[in-house]
């Protein structure tokens, strides 16, 4: 431990910081992150379940298990091409894993961190603060790197060409790739912070978190027709990724030819690290005056959306939830990102991978398979997951929580809101896609009714577990862990519905039987939720959490 600290201190000094400042700062920020998780856990009414640490370990174990696939394939089928496809796949998976880790959790936390408000007058330079924050960022990135690549690297120690050199080069390349992604992205994030200011960068953080940034990775697929053929004729570009060098080093026939490319990759990585640190160290939004928010216009987007949901959300509770929704639509960009990303993803899949023609006979009973390829149900499950997660209600809305509102009606209004925000756009895409294929309106109507019933049942199943409003502005590991728990729960229900939908499409008995079975199950779930809310003595303020 002492040796590691001493090494870290040397690195800090090398990077232009004072170890006597950066070390306690790093410790303090790590303790704060751990404490925030404990705060979050202690606020939850439902105790037990997985802690953030357990979730983190589980994720690393899963990553290690996934990584076994690469050496197994390599050993089972000796590679014919250079570099081997499995290595490129490993490098790509590692690149995306580190990128998403930074973009999902640490990046938003960096963008939204309010260090200036806590220690803006302390004798800490911007560079030192950044070095401490980067340490927080590097820790999980290195953990994922080790989990994902340790087994393949050990395998290449024996099976590479030449064995030891290939493994060492691969390990160094992966480490460099980790540093390049982390520092490069940190630099970009801090540059953005400096360019757009604190308030807007907090909004951006919200848009990026919870995997919403994943959509950015899909965008190149829109140009897939052009990109993939180009890669086919320009395979040398993979040598620019540091970890692929070993293939060049390991094969004397191609080593000379690709050594320059490998050198370019090395230089590009080092440049990303140096420029990233430099950009991040100087990037700051500084203090901003808090402008007074003007009252939203009558035809503002938030007002129009809330207005459109009005028929679905009657009563005082419906009004209260609509007001909360409006507040979040104006200020909570994490909520906006979560709500917008999945319908967008669904549209993306529908139009990129969806068919344009099919046999009319296949549409006689249902269009679920032809239009949705069954991912439709998965998408709805994922969106409902977003809608039943964790909350952070603006202070201004607390009087609503303290008012004499009925908990069950608030939960009903919450489901209506999800119906309006998630199901309606999903249904519109479905209707468009199914009609384009030539499905009859009766078939489309039946499919939609089934999907709506399934969504309602997922929500009724999840609401007793996460009986809160679907808003959140906190970026914590603990919260991500709880999302995984919610994901596992809804994933189980999803599997049941997937099988049911498959049987619904292909078996006549089930096709009509579901209408006899599902409504009573829905009714029972509804009654269970109502009784649970009453039995636990839930108050509106438990649901509309701070």
């Amino acid at each position: 431990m002492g040796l590691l600290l001493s090494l870290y201190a040397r690195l800090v000094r090398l990077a232009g910081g004072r170890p006597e400042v950066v070390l306690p700062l790093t410790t303090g920020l790590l303790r704060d992150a751990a404490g925030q998780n404990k705060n979050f856990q202690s606020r939850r009414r439902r105790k037990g379940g997985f802690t953030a640490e357990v979730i983190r370990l589980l994720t690393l174990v899963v990553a290690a298990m996934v990584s076994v696939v690469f050496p197994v394939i390599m050993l089972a089928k000796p590679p014919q091409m250079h570099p081997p496809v499995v290595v490129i796949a490993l490098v790509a998976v590692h690149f995306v894993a580190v990128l998403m880790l930074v973009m999902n959790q640490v990046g938003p936390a960096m963008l939204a961190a309010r260090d200036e408000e806590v220690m803006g007058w302390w004798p800490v330079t911007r560079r030192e603060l950044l070095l401490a924050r980067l340490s927080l960022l590097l820790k999980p990135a290195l953990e994922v790197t080790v989990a994902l690549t340790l087994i393949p690297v050990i395998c290449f120690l024996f099976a590479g060409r030449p064995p030891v050199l290939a493994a060492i080069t691969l390990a160094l390349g992966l480490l460099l790739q980790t540093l390049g992604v982390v520092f490069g992205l940190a630099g970009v994030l801090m540059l953005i912070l400096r360019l757009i200011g604190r308030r807007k960068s907090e909004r951006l953080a919200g848009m990026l978190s919870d995997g919403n940034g994943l959509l950015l990775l899909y965008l190149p697929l829109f140009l897939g027709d052009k990109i993939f053929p180009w890669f086919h004729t320009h395979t040398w570009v993979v040598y620019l990724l540091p970890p692929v060098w070993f293939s060049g080093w390991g094969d004397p026939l191609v080593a000379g030819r690709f050594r320059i490319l490998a050198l370019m990759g090395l230089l590009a990585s080092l440049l990303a690290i140096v420029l990233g640190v430099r950009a991040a160290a100087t990037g700051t939004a500084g203090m901003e005056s808090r402008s007074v928010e003007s009252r939203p216009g009558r035809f503002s987007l938030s007002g129009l959306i809330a207005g459109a949901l009005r028929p679905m959300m009657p009563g005082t509770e419906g009004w209260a939830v609509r007001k909360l929704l409006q507040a979040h639509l104006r200020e909570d960009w994490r909520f906006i990102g979560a709500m917008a990303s999945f319908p967008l993803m669904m549209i993306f899949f529908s139009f990129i991978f969806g068919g344009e023609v099919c046999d009319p006979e296949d549409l006689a009973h249902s269009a679920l398979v032809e239009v949705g390829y069954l991912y439709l149900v998965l998408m709805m499950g994922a969106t409902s997951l977003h809608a039943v997660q964790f909350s952070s209600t603006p202070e201004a809305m607390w009087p609503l929580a303290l008012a004499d509102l009925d908990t069950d009606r608030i939960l009903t209004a919450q489901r209506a809101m999800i119906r309006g925000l998630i199901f309606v756009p999903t249904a519109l895409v479905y209707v468009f896609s199914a009609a384009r294929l030539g499905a009859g309106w009766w078939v489309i109507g039946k499919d939609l009714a089934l999907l709506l019933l399934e969504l309602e049942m997922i929500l009724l199943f999840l609401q007793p577990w996460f009986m809160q409003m679907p808003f959140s502005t906190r970026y914590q590991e603990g919260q991500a862990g709880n999302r995984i728990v919610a994901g596992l729960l809804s994933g189980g229900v999803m599997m049941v519905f997937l099988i049911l939908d498959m049987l619904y499409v292909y078996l006549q008995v089930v096709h009509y039987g579901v209408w006899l079975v599902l409504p009573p199950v829905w009714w029972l779930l509804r009654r269970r939720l109502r009784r649970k809310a009453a039995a636990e003595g839930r108050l509106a303020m438990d649901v509309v959490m701070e």
Partner: protein
Amino acid sequence: MIITRGLTRRFDNLVAVDNLDVEIPAGRIVALLGANGAGKTTTLNMLTTLMPPSSGTAEVGGFDIQEQGGDVRRILGYVPEHGALYEGLTANEYLELSGRIRGLSASEVEARATHWLEFFELTEFRDQRLASFSKGMRRKVLVTSALLHEPRILFLDEPMDGLDVRSQKKLGELLQEQAAAGCTVVYSSHILQQVEELCEHVVLIHQGTLRWQGDLDDLKAGHAGAGLRDIFLELTEEGPA
């Protein structure tokens, strides 16, 4: 000693602090007064290096706030109005972080934190996370953090906000002790009664401009018989001073 020359801060079209020329003597408790939005917090933010001025300069303890920001930060303690804290830390951990960053050894931090936490009757809460602290308790932790490194200059923005009466009295006495020991205390507040009890020197800002500065006794002498509240209202009336 704090000196500002033409200190100005603009936010787009709004001039929050306009050409401020102030001299604050060392070792005294100085009240920074003004109505809501007068520019007090912006002035404090500039003097504590949180915010660069749009134009003008200032010296804090002999150091230029722009050229020697690091030196300024080393000699000051600050209790901001909306004091943010790392809420995942316990009081002890937060004070350890604050002290170590200012170059104190672990034993020094421990001894001083223990002293001030006892003074503010927070000892039994020192191992609790700050998220569970009330507004007043957070204020006390912020004051403790500001005092740990024995600053030469102490800035406090509405320090009594959220404190109970006993704690207000203790903090008042503490500030007087600090001033007696040579520390310059700049105290921004709306509570004029406390200002009259504690402060010897007054700087009054209105709409970003200086309306009056000098000894409190001189201010009162110039408005024979009037209380500080009436003087304040008179000096902050709309129109030129």
